[in-house]
């Protein structure tokens, strides 16, 4: 039995400390997925808590063959999609599909500028730092513009390293659908980031 299975066994028997270990080894990953899906720090934080409350509630249903992280991602995806539906029903009038959050990137830009200014002119390359911040912003923007399902698939495959089959299980959709979502997501990203043709282009 793996360490993880042992913890799950104990958590299922009501061992709080075991559950705590399970929470603390995966809450950052759950947060990142929730952020990728909601594009909002505050929502991602709230939803991460909600994920573990649900996980605790349905701990008895967890099958030992399943993977703990995959199971959590499944709860996360469902909660985030529900959350998004509620949000869009609530805010029919003002469309903000990009949901692009300036705050996070704004602060990193400030940091980058500050660190650029602080270092000596001879060795610093503020242009390079500014460029890197720009790239971060463009990447986030490109992600924000993906439809929710495609973004979820892309985040799970690219950033959470879930195999396509597991994504299908996680999102409760056919594997073929996962592949077409992923393909479309990749094509969109390529178009969105065409500005970086020099770096993305096949010949470098």
């Amino acid at each position, binding site marked *: 039995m793996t360490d993880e299975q042992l913890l799950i066994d104990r958590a299922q028997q009501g061992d709080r400390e075991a559950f705590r270990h399970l929470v603390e080894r995966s809450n950052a990953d759950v947060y990142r997925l929730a952020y990728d899906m909601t594009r909002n720090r505050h929502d991602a934080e709230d939803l991460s808590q909600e994920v573990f409350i649900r996980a605790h509630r349905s701990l008895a249903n967890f099958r030992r063959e399943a993977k703990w992280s995959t199971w959590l991602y499944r709860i996360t995806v469902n909660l985030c999609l529900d959350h998004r539906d509620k949000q869009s029903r609530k805010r029919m009038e003002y469309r903000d599909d990009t949901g692009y959050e300036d705050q996070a990137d704004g602060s990193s830009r400030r940091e980058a500028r500050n660190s650029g200014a602080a270092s000596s002119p001879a060795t610093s390359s503020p242009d390079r730092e500014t460029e890197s911040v720009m790239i971060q912003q463009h990447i986030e923007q490109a*992600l924000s513009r993906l439809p929710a399902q495609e973004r979820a698939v892309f985040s799970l495959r690219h950033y959470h390293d879930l195999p396509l089959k597991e994504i299908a299980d996680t999102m409760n959709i056919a594997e073929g659908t996962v592949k077409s979502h992923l393909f479309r997501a*990749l094509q969109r990203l390529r178009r969105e980031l065409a500005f970086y043709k020099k770096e993305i282009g096949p010949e470098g």
Partner: protein
Amino acid sequence: MMMTCERSRELFPEALYSELAPDLQNEFREHLASCLSCRTEFEELKATLQFMNRRSRPQPGRDFLESFWDRLSARLPAGEKIARPVVSGGASYRTRPARVPAWAYGIAAVLLIAVGVYLGRTFFGGPTPGVPRNDEQLLSAGAMPQEDSTSAKAVAYLERSKNLLIGLTNLDEEHRSSLDLSRNQEVSRELIQQANVLTVALNRPDQQQMRRLIQDLEVILLQLANIDVKPGVPAIELVQKGVDQRSILLKINLEEMRAIARRTPPNQPKKTNL
């Protein structure tokens, strides 16, 4: 025999993430080698993915991660039943939840075993700690006079403190690692707040001993509430030192307390409940 462009493109997602079935790999490679349009698109998508690797992943804030469990566990159904008196009052302890590495639990338990065994012996009159009973049972058993509500509250308070400490000390090897110290610290803080109120209320000369007892216990509870172990700094040693120095163990004696309670003059009408 030759793979179609349509089929080749279907395989892009798998191929890009190295999930392509082995029996398809050769065919796929051959198609790309002979089809410029598929090859170009495939290479562009591959480059896009490499570009996406330059993303700085969203990082949850440190506060968010540090307080995550405390906030979560407050919303989970309670695993164990610990009395949570609602008492407000000034508090001098730090309220920030302490993060304690697992090894500290063992030390905390060892340290408090002495307290627990002592309390168990003195509170229950036997050589081994008994099964903790709740306040109501103890009080309804007639062990304590109920005439004086402050004294009764003090007894209930001491009982809760005892339950907390015995709960910590009766841990067997297996449960030590699963001890929820932060929960115990939370209860400690509540008890400390109660102590502040009680020690003011216990103002009669015949209540002085009981008051001192509560103050002594408060020192242990404060130390428990303030356990804050940083890596490489065993702060819990300070607690142990503090407990030894104050000789608190020698002062806590339920028989003594009961004797005090019995001597308490019944200057209030008898109440059926508190």
